[in-house]
């Protein structure tokens, strides 16, 4: 005798359809998040790299002295914030990351940067860490080893 579809069968069919829809939607949303994350990482990577370039420039600026003066690289150890303002590089000791400053309009997200210095003989190891108001953990960390500066005579 034909009875049609039972409530259990209909429920299972409905469940399968819902699971398939949820899987589709999750895939699409994960894809979106991944690309947004990639864009964020790109910006954070640029800003971490900017921090290291500013450190190299800070070291190189110590060479800008009159001929009779000796060049001294001040001792650095611990956590610092670095920024570029008024055509100068500012390196300040800091216990927590500082907001990255921009030359123009700021992005909607805040980025925070901190540099960690550790000196061993003449070599200074620098780590530039960046996090953002969206991702709190230091997502990007770049390292550089600074050797004492030297003038290149041609």
């Amino acid at each position, binding site marked *: 005798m034909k009875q049609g579809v039972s409530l259990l069968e209909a429920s299972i069919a409905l469940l399968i359809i819902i699971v398939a829809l949820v899987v589709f939607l999750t895939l699409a949303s994960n894809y979106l998040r991944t690309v947004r994350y990639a864009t964020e990482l*790109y910006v954070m990577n640029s800003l971490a790299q900017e921090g290291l370039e500013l450190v190299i420039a800070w070291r190189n600026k110590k060479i800008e002295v009159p001929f009779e003066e000796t060049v001294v690289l001040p001792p650095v150890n611990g956590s610092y914030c670095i920024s570029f303002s008024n055509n100068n590089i500012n390196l300040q000791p800091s216990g927590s990351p500082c907001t990255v400053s921009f030359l123009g309009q700021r*992005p909607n997200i805040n980025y925070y940067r901190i540099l960690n210095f550790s000196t061993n003989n003449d070599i200074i190891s620098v780590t530039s860490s960046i996090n953002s108001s969206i991702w709190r953990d230091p997502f990007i960390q770049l390292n550089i080893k600074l050797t004492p500066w030297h003038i290149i005579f041609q």
Partner: protein
Amino acid sequence: MAHYFSVKNRGFTLLEIAVVILLVSLILLIVSDIYIGITKTSVILERRIRALENVNLGTEKVWRLLKYSWDIQNLGNGIRFKNDNCVPMTIQFADNNIKINDEDLFDPYLVKVNDFRTAIDSPNTTERYAYYQYAPKVIVLYYNLELKERITTSSLIFQQAVAPLNSLYSVNKCQ
């Protein structure tokens, strides 16, 4: 044969068929809507990835040129310098793009430049005997870009700094 013509095997009523068609069309509508949505998203994201790659290539080119540059001058919205072979070059904001000697840095179909600013440091001494005494030690570049994604656009604001290697030379090779 009698089985097929029995009273119990009457087929579907018009109402049953109507309900089934309605349900199938509803499911089709939902599934196709989701499918179109996913396709649209994937097209947008594919464009964004391409645009991001284009930005990456462009900024690396700028970084490489400026890293080995001489005679650097800041224009506010660009940099004038000489490359490692002492050929004069300009990187400047124009026509919603960044031009390197009149050549587009970014693909205009993928990236639109809203703003581009540049800054260099001032020397700590007024002496100009050696190149390293007055050569800029850092160039800061600010990018305000729009990544074009066919239907929508997304903003990309970041900064890049370059510490030119040649700023430690005592003699300006390109003077």
